[in-house]
């Protein structure tokens, strides 16, 4: 249980309680121009109308993860190496996206 509204550790394994058959998980990594994983990137999840939904910060593995619902989503990554935007048509289960940031 979390007492606050902040995002949990993005490098942690999926909790055992998460049923991947039922959940819609948007996950992936942020990489820079050189193809290196970017730690400390801010990844924002925007809904189908472009409205902000949630934001997480990537850990050492450059990874991000959101629990959402099937449908259209936009992922927006901001980092010191630049920004990236990705569109996702999410289904139930794991939906993986790589976000390549550049200036």
């Amino acid at each position, binding site marked *: 249980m979390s007492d*606050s509204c902040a995002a949990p550790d993005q490098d942690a394994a999926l909790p055992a309680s998460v049923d991947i058959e039922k959940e819609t998980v948007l996950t992936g990594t942020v990489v820079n121009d050189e193809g290196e994983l970017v730690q400390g990137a801010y990844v924002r999840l925007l809904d189908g109308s472009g409205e902000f939904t949630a934001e997480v910060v990537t850990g050492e593995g450059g990874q991000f993860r959101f629990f959402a619902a099937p449908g259209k989503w936009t992922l927006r990554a901001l980092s010191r190496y630049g920004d990236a935007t990705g569109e996702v048509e999410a289904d139930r289960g794991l939906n993986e996206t790589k976000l390549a940031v550049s200036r």
Partner: protein
Amino acid sequence: MAREDVLVTADWAEENLDTPGVVFVEVDEDASAYDYGHIKGAVKIDWKDDLQDPIRRDFVNQEQFSQLLSERGIANDDTVVLYGGNNNWFAAYAYWYFKLYGHEDVKLLDGGRKKWELDAREVTADVVKREATNYIAKPLDWDLRAKRDEVEAAIGAKNLIDVRSPDEYAGRLLAPAHLPQEQSQRAGHIPTALSVPWSKAANEDGTFKSEAELRELYVGEAGLDEDKATIAYCRIGERSSHTWFALRELLGYTDVKNYDGSWTEYGSLVGVPIALGDEPGTK
């Protein structure tokens, strides 16, 4: 009040890292962020361990706040610059405390930790030690804090601003989408509350929108009545501190309170009215 009285830019902060009488304070819920790297000379406040009472469901009292700031080496006449992660939620929450306990000169670093990192500005893992002070907090200013009875009485009478996500407002979720669903007994919102998610007050780099944009957001789009008092709430009171800051400190509305009990308290009260769905509802 002018924007520059309550917000400092990252450039200003960088130029004033060594200015005597200016103390930088990082406020986070994740202490490891500070330990990994913080602005040079900044001390740390942990929103939970330092700002909440360890036993009762309440935040630290006047004496506890005095002791905390004394230990951190903050003096009554220091200029305190707060910043943190999560788009400054926790820093805004701490800012509200500093105002509740009467600190004269406190400001937020616009954009917080996020903008600082996106700008690739310098952080350090150095241990910061400031000499202890004898800080004396003032009695809690109840003009800034709303309690549950006052909130219920405000239905249909004052502006209530619900700053949670639209799904939490409508009652489709009990907590933000990236967290387990928990705590309050009932979902929904306080009848007549306007839905203005906190995130609409911020740009994507975490800085606050301009006063003109903020006024259009609250008054133009949401329909806030400028002649009435306002109470902001969220789930536990930190996202609403961000909105409280926008309304009182940036837009200058004088009668704005933060309801820190927020939905975890209101949604568990027996017998109070609740509205479901995307509309504010009626009294």
